[in-house]
């Protein structure tokens, strides 16, 4: 499909600038963007957080609070009408009628006290003059178009009775309910598991094609764009830096930022190689070429170590259960097994990754290793001995880094105190000693040692994750548990953290137990992979082997579902 011509554009944004009015500052969210979407076209808008992509989406329907925003110049027209000049009543006709939206969070985007029926009727009856009986027929048809088999049940259900994927299907059905000309989908699958994401994206594309509806897909995931979109706009800091046919933009990126973004993706790179970070290449400017990948020795070293007699860490029949139902006396009468008979081993200096979707038990397993939840049966061995039987000091050689850098640092503590907290256990080092140690740790994880007096909120997400890694390193661990350490971060920041982790591993011969849902990241960092599904390890082995030639059916499903650039272009 060719870029839209002026005549059949459903959305036309011309030189739009948008400022947020803060308490005492103005934030320039958009700095003059121009964009066009033709009828029936699927267009991606890619960017990292802060790029202005969601603002663009919300502003299309004027959903931003008018008192807190200002539009210095530019126009947004939908089907030839300038939405900036419409009043609230006219806008209400456009919203959900000509243009509808799909949001990211399926858990909160539907009203919890209304049935799906009421929420669908709400939209349909507002924009169409049909009888309730016809509206019901239409709703059921829309739901079954979304490949929902028991549409009747879903139609009469409350949102909390549906899974995340099902809710998102309902959202999409609602979005299609009034034959819109354009659907704006704001990260529609980011909160979902990969296998569900694949289904939802396919459905969205299928329905859009069938109804000739244009789609504006806002996402941070280049692979999703590659798979789904005809054209793509790349946004960076409130500007569109590159646009064109998806194949051209991703295959032959012109702008340095696009190139950097692609280079920061672990996908398609040599495992354990250094990933390029966006900041580095943006400083060098337009002319930057992908830097030569540093050759590493760790991979080789890892293989040499493999086969040593005792693994550093071993799980033997590890099982974790949670009480599900209680009797009258408050005793548990039935249990849900979260981790079922897991056997794993990890050798010194290597990385073992556990891959799985939400609810597969990977986090429960991590929690059981660090003693946050008890094992129902089985054993966890560290250096050949039960982890529980080790003394306090040895147990501390196992440390953890959590997913959410927001919640893992006490907001009231300066970072020197955070990073050295483990060192205060059982003894009272002087303040100066601690501060010195903290400064050292800062250097280790690539932070400014002069910043140790700052509070966590003064740091960005990636920096906070560095602080958390620094805290774990303070007690000289041998084994680091990394529980989705990069999944809350932007691609370019993720690349930085992965680089840091690989550097640290090489330097200190650390062993990692890396928990993730992201197959590309796992492929990049892990020597060995274990795939978990419903509490069990269904497949494990060397990462190359498991991820390229999976034997178990679930692993195959998972691999098929992961959107990749490679496959998108092969298609």
């Amino acid at each position: 499909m060719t870029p839209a011509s002026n005549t059949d554009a459903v959305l036309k944004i011309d030189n739009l600038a948008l400022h947020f009015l803060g308490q005492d500052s103005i934030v320039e969210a958009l700095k003059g963007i121009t964009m066009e979407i033709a009828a029936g076209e699927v267009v991606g808008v890619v960017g990292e957080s802060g790029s202005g992509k969601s603002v663009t989406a919300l502003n299309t329907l004027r959903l931003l609070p008018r008192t807190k925003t200002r539009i210095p110049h530019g126009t947004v027209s939908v089907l030839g009408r300038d939405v900036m000049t419409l009043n609230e009543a006219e806008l209400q006709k456009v919203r959900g009628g000509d243009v509808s939206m799909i949001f990211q969070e399926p858990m909160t985007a539907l009203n919890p006290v209304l049935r799906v029926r009421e929420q669908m009727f709400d939209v349909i009856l507002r924009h169409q003059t049909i009888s309730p009986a016809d509206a019901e027929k239409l709703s059921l048809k829309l739901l079954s178009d979304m490949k929902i088999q028991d549409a009747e049940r879903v139609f009469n259900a409350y949102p909390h009775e549906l899974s995340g994927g099902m809710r998102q299907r309902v959202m999409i059905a609602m979005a299609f309910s009034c034959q819109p000309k354009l659907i704006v989908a704001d990260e529609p699958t980011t909160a979902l598991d990969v296998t569900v994401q694949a289904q939802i994206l396919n459905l969205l594309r299928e329905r859009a094609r069938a109804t000739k509806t244009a789609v504006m897909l806002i996402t941070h995931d280049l692979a999703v764009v590659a798979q789904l979109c005809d054209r793509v706009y790349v946004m960076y800091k409130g500007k569109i830096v590159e646009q064109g046919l998806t194949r051209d933009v991703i295959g032959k990126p012109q702008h340095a930022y696009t190139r950097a973004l692609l280079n920061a993706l672990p996908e398609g790179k040599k495992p354990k190689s250094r990933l390029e970070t966006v900041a580095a290449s943006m400083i060098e400017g337009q002319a930057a070429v992908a830097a030569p990948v540093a050759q590493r020795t760790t991979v080789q070293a890892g293989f040499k170590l493999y086969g040593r007699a005792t693994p550093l860490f071993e799980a033997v029949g590890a099982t974790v259960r949670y009480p599900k139902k209680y009797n009258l006396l408050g005793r548990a009468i039935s249990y849900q097994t979260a981790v079922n008979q897991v056997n794993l081993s990890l050798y010194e200096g290597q990385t073992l990754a556990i891959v799985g979707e939400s609810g597969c038990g990977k986090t429960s397993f991590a929690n059981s290793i660090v003693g946050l939840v008890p094992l129902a049966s089985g054993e966890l061995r560290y250096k050949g001995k039960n982890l529980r039987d080790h003394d306090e000091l040895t147990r501390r050689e196992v440390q953890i880094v959590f997913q959410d850098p927001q919640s893992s640092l006490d907001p009231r503590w300066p970072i020197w105190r955070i990073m050295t907290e483990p060192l205060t256990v059982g003894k009272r080092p002087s303040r100066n000693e601690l501060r010195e140690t903290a400064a050292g740790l800062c250097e280790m994880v690539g932070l400014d040692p002069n910043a140790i007096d700052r509070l966590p909120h003064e740091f960005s997400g990636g920096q906070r994750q560095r602080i958390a890694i620094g805290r774990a390193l303070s007690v000289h661990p041998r084994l680091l548990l990394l529980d989705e350490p990069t999944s809350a971060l932007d691609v370019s920041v993720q690349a930085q953290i992965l680089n840091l982790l690989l550097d640290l591993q090489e330097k200190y011969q650390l062993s990692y137990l890396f928990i993730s849902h992201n197959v590309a990241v796992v492929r990049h960092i892990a020597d060995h992979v274990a795939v978990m599904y419903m509490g069990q390890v269904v497949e494990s082995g060397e990462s190359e082997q498991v991820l390229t030639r999976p034997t178990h059916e679930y692993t195959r499903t998972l691999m098929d579902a992961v959107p990749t650039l490679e496959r998108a272009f092969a298609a």
Partner: protein
Amino acid sequence: MSSVAENAPNSAGAKTTGQDLLTGLIPLLLQLRKLAWLIFAVTTLLFFVLRQAGDPALVLAGNDATPEQLAAIRAQFGLDRPLIIQYFSYMWNVLQFDFGKSLASAEPALGKVLDMVPRTLHLAGMAILLTATIAIPLGSWLGFKPENPERRAVSGFLFVMQGVPGFVTALVLIQVFAVNLRWLPSLGYEWFEPKTWVLPTCSLASFLFPSLTRVVAANVAEAMREDYIRTARANGASQSALLWKHAVPNALLGAAALIGTQFAALLGGSAIIETIFSWPGMGWLLLESVQTLDFPVVQALAFMIAIMVFTVNACTDLVFRFLDPRLRTKGA
């Protein structure tokens, strides 16, 4: 990719076996266990505290009774037995709803209390009704949009009203409407005379409605920031639909809890207002009987208040389950 897992019926509310029915009853049984605890604790505490206060025989016989008369009364009522024995026999009677006779009027104590229940319910019900009628629309309006001069003025007024205790309002209302204007009676209660209802109801409501209004407003304001409001807006919902269909029902979930607690607290907590207006309800009776050391009545009152508070809380719970589908379908 299989979509089988996605389409599998949700386990919640799928089947109802005997086991499920039993586990469904557990919340109720737990509630009843709480009630038993409450009654036991209150009755026991009162028994010993009241015994410390004065000799029941002395109250029964009067201050000028001879030692012989006192001894006779003690023997007659079993007051000469050890305290712990008296306690057990007393608890045995309580189990059969027998609190003894009022020392002041020789009527059964529980009967005397039961006479008061409808009047207190009447007053508390009217006060809550008035409170909710004012607070819910006012709070919704207040929380719907960001502050402007009118909203600022109203919330300032609410803030001041929140600082005026109910009994102070009552005294001021009496001063203005009964003493100065002579429009309404300053005290008394007549079942068929709504004029006597006005001042007590308004006094109670004046203290209740500011906090309820502000909580409704805070909840509505919070609901307006939720994702589902954004979804509804993106689907073209009008301002009034946003407020009444989406924000208010969610906000009322928080307010329902407050209304229940307010009502429960009124059952004994309106003692001051009832006393000021000579409204012959449970609170009024409580002060009367405490001050005349009429122990059986005090005990019966405490028992009754415990049961009524429990009932109100259980009903609030039910209303909650009715209002919030997330609690309704999950059951236990």
